[in-house]
């Protein structure tokens, strides 16, 4: 182990690559978190599946009639949107806390800081796995069967989502360990984005105001993931926005991480 104050680029790169590769550690810690959260409940993480499922059914019936959309069209759209939103919003809220909540560990032993971000990410992927059951049920009930090509697109989209979750957790975690008033700000912004992004409402319901939707990067993330499951090929624009966001996000995160990574141990 060589830590030199004038080798920040190498140290930042090593942190990210070693952090991702230490799956033994973040895999175990992520599971531990899930077990801890649901230890004394019978259903465990399926509680979350159940509550998301209830929300899908209730909101589905109400909003389908408000928007005058047929149930077999609206419910799959809503189910996928809500499950994805659960993932995205908890990645962002928990991203703020990745380093703060790992304070004891950061102050006591040298682990790549990326490990802590991977831990939170893994935890949310496990929860996504449980929630995916809702999507499967809805798709089966309404007889929506995505083709193999669509499934390939879905896998690619999920991969992109995970990559974005990683840079978001790293940069938010870093900023929030320095400025402690950021998490509430992020919380309010999330609430606004929930209503601004087509999750409850279909983008076609906003004629003439298409810009509001097109300029929202979150919308494109929903498009590339939700589209294939509903049998719609996402537009090239959506893919371009998503890929560009990923690259730009990692670039900015790396610059931030390179400059401030070593201060995180002092900040938390």
């Amino acid at each position: 182990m060589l830590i030199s104050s004038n080798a920040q680029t190498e140290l930042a790169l090593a942190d990210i690559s070693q952090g991702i590769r230490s799956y033994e550690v973040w895999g175990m810690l992520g599971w531990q978190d899930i077990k801890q959260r649901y230890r004394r409940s019978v259903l465990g993480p399926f509680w979350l599946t159940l509550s998301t499922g209830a929300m899908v059914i209730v909101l589905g019936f109400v909003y389908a009639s408000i928007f005058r959309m047929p149930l077999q069209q609206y419910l799959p759209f809503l189910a996928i949107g809500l499950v994805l939103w659960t993932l995205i919003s908890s990645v962002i809220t928990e991203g703020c806390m990745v380093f703060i909540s790992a304070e004891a560990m950061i102050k006591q032993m040298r682990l790549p800081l990326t490990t802590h971000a991977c831990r939170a990410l893994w935890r949310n992927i496990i929860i996504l796995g449980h929630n995916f059951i809702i999507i499967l049920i809805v798709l089966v009930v309404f007889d929506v069967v995505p083709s193999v090509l669509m499934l390939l697109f879905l896998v690619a989209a999920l991969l992109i989502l995970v990559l974005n979750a990683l840079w978001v957790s790293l940069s938010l975690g870093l900023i929030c360990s320095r400025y402690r008033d950021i998490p509430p700000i992020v919380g309010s912004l999330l609430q606004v984005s929930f209503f601004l992004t087509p999750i409850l409402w279909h983008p076609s319901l906003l004629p003439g105001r298409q810009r509001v939707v097109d300029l929202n990067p979150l919308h494109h993330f929903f498009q590339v993931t939700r589209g294939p499951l509903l049998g719609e090929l996402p537009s090239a624009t959506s893919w371009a926005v998503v890929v560009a966001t990923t690259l730009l996000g990692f670039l900015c995160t790396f610059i931030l991480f390179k400059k401030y990574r070593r201060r995180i141990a002092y900040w938390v």
Partner: protein
Amino acid sequence: MPSISLRDVFVQIPIYSATGRSLKRQFIRATTGAKVVSDAGRIVVNALSGVSLELGHGDRVGLVGHNGAGKTTLLRVMAGVYEPTLGSVAVDGRVTPLFDMGLGMDTEATGYENISVRATLLGIPRNQQGALVEDVAAFTELGDYLNMPVRTYSQGMYLRLAFAISTGVAPDILLMDEFFAVGDAHFLVKAQKRIDQLVSRTGIMVLASHSDQLIRRFCNKVLWVNAGEVKAFGGTDEVLREYSSGVA
């Protein structure tokens, strides 16, 4: 061969007040030319200034100094937890810091689960954890309690488990920040034996302590830090004598 080498290490730790922690306040400061809120809310402490040090195999170093002299910071730098603001640190060998015995302990999890969590944190793959589990089980004499959640343990049982897990694996480099378990007399004797064994199996040990007795017992060298600088480094007796006359 384990070694620790510090070259001209400076560590500056920023300490923030509540206002320094707030983005809103920082923003107001920036936009008002700092006229309204003059307190930056930030103090920088020079925790270490220009520390150079070479430790090699067989070194048992006692770390002495006043409270706030930089002992813990120095240990954290050796552990790779704090990175130097200036200078470089090279550490060869596997380091185990023993600062907080309860690290990673989850009271809802069983004793066995806790052993496994700590072992994974120490970098022992799952299929090689058997020896440690047996060793901890034998040492703690907890028996079937290891299958129960740690929250059902008494204080003494918890300590025994935390201590046994922390001291179960001999690293190349052992860093200790004055921690010694308390417990019943029977346990204390066993604990001392275990610490002796642990220390004898490690290449380098650094122990920060205020107890002369402890340092004389374990260490062959003493490092005296004062105000973030190395005041003296040498044989146990001479530095301790210097230190106690300097203090008095």
